[in-house]
């Protein structure tokens, strides 16, 4: 009876509680370690999918012309055309839904290994809009945090607790389990067809020309602007020829987008080439060149890439 009472007391003590919690946390740490290391192994073994393209950009790419940007870069710039016109190898680093914080981090990782000759940065409308989600998307770079110290300061812009969260081994691979499985199988074989990082969009736009009122100002993010300037400075420091381009839109804008306007000013300040094709009459409202109002289709991207490649050749001339 006495023994029973004592064991009951023991099971209701603070020290017993702390012991149980510590034990539970220890088991969680072990499970987390196993899950994290397994996912890390398979993450870097992926042969297809957007994560494998990011791994290529950060750890393998050695091309001489590199294209940075979001979905518009990904679908607008055909590296094969740049290669044939400029006689330099080329790769498209464009990633759907990713903006300047991501591009700057990838540039830093690239420059830690190699130095391309030409960099094209595609700037979009709203590029510098204050949106926390653009920093949250830096989680795509968490798998590289451990091995790429050069990108850590950018990743830490995501939140002040990122270092703390990274104590978890599985956190860098949060939500990636299915895409890692897909990247390690043939799942992407027919879906992820890209030509040196570029994927032409094979459909035609059917809607008529739209005029969008862009007079409304939005809040600009000083951190994004600073990252944009840092991107320019990194290229200049390493003698890379940088072209900042705003590629065509199907939509007619009533006013110049504040981000594009500011991007142009900053480029001028740093004496960098800035080309604004956003309202180029050849493309504006031409349905047969667009897949949707913001993205060129295969035909449009071919013609646009030809124009840009020729312009770069014209601009650089004998330097190449």
């Amino acid at each position: 009876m006495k023994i029973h009472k004592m064991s009951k007391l023991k099971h209701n003590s603070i020290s017993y509680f702390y012991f149980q919690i510590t034990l539970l946390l220890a088991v969680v740490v072990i499970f987390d370690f196993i899950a994290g290391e397994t996912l890390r192994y398979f993450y870097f073994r992926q042969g297809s999918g957007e994560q494998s393209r990011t791994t290529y950009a950060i750890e393998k790419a050695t091309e001489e012309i590199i294209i940075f940007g979001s979905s518009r870069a990904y679908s607008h710039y055909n590296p094969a055309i740049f290669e044939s016109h400029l006689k330099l190898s080329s790769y498209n680093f464009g990633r759907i839904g990713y903006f300047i914080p991501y591009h700057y981090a990838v540039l830093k990782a690239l420059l830690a290994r190699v130095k391309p000759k030409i960099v094209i940065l595609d700037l979009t409308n709203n590029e510098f809009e204050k949106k926390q989600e653009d920093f949250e998307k830096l989680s795509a770079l968490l798998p590289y945090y451990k091995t790429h110290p050069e990108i850590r300061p950018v990743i830490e812009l995501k939140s002040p607790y990122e270092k703390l969260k990274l104590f978890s081994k599985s956190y860098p691979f949060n939500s990636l389990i299915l895409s890692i499985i897909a990247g390690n199988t043939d799942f992407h074989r027919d879906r992820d067809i890209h030509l040196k990082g570029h994927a032409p969009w094979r459909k035609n736009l059917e809607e008529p020309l739209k005029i969008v009122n862009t007079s409304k100002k939005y809040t600009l993010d000083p951190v994004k602007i600073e990252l944009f300037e840092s991107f320019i400075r990194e290229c200049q420091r390493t003698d890379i020829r940088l072209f900042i381009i705003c590629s065509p839109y199907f939509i007619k804008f009533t006013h110049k987008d504040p981000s594009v306007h500011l991007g142009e000013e900053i480029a001028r300040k740093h004496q960098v080439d800035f080309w604004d094709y956003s309202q180029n009459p050849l493309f504006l409202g031409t349905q047969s060149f667009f897949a949707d109002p913001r993205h060129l289709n295969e035909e449009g991207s071919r013609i646009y890439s030809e124009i840009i490649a020729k312009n770069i050749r014209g601009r650089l001339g004998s330097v190449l």
Partner: protein
Amino acid sequence: MLFNSIQFIIFFVIVIHFFFIVPPKYLLSLLLISSCYFYMAFIPIYILILGVTILIDYAAGLLLEKIQGPTRKLFLIVSIIANIGVLAVFKYYDFISENLLLAFKSFGYEYSLPSLSLLLPVGLSFHTFQAMSYTIEVYRGRQKAERNLGTYALYVLFFPQLVAGPIERPQHLIPQLVQNHSFDYRRIVEGLRLILWGFFKKLVIADRLAIYVNWAYNDPLSQSGITLAVATIFFAFQIYCDFSGYSDIAIGTAKVIGINLMINFNRPYFSKNFTEFWRRWHISLSSWFRDYLYIPLGGNRVSMFRLYGNLFIVFLLSGFWHGAHWTFIVWGLINGFYLMFSLMTSKLRQKVVRVVGLEQFPKTHQFLQIIFVFSLVCLAWIFFRARNLTEAITILKKILLFDGPFDYGNFSLMVFSLFGIGLLVLVELKEEYGRKGLLFLSNPNGIVRKLSYVILIVIILLIGVFDGGQFIYFQF
């Protein structure tokens, strides 16, 4: 400080640790200081507004108990006006001003009030209602006025339920605040289990579904009817997991401290009719409206016509309580209409069930009732989630046309969303029709139970959304 943040986890660990080691006479002070710190983590200066209303209600409580006669009612009114006044200024002023401007304009008059554009104090509607329930209960003589200002302040400020409920009653919460809270291992584990399940609901289900819902609802014109229908069903689960997940964390946190908060959700999507739905959904608010509005208006003991009128008022105010926006008001009214219509047709429906022969298949009948109520609840959610009434109507039209194709967005997102919903339904089915308790988390076998904690934590780490936003109900 959001529950789903690192700051809260650190805060909680520190508070609990101190709670275990400080002498009992300091516990109230510890909780009060912690609660003030918790509230001030949002907008520090707003603690002063809360402080003023606390002082008014505290004084009103004492006077209501002391004074007899007609002046007594006056003190109640002063206290209610003080509370509603703060709510009106911060939450409804701009809405009323904008709508007055529109109304005057339509008659050809130019009229405008200056816009205040004030940031809404977090959880204002919740602690205002909780504070009002105190003075009303003291006025009704069902609660003794609290002598200790610290205890009363803690009743309003108690951090687990300060920003999004459950909206407590003084009879239930105040006595618990002044009790001695001895260390109880079982109670603490139960609380932590509830917190874990709340995090799962919020991070794995609600915030994951939110990605698809936001994508579909932010550009409804580009989406097909099927896509919007799926997004609406997802929103039904999102809001449920978001709010009930918050409530689980709140109730679990309080339980660890030794305080039992009232249950706020009771598997509402298993409701077979709308009366039952409102007994299971946001119980603390529904019962608040029942006790302090619906019953004083006459409750069920009035003519049919007045009963419908009372329901209309309650749901109109319930919608308005959620937010100063027409979408919430319409959402409230739709739910009021559902309830009125179900009361009106109750006999007819019984007759139809008899004629069709569904009586002989009670399980099928029950299943059909659940699906029917859930579908109508989903239709009402469209108004709650849409950015404005025009978009809500567009979404509704598209859903009713049910045109394709279905755009599942991102493959992983869809699989994780369905996994989350599937697991939730499984757990709730077991709780509704089987033994009570959270599936494996309450398993009598200690090893299975502890292993399920670990697995749930690893699932949260692997597929939880860590960059998700705040809880939906924080904005109210």
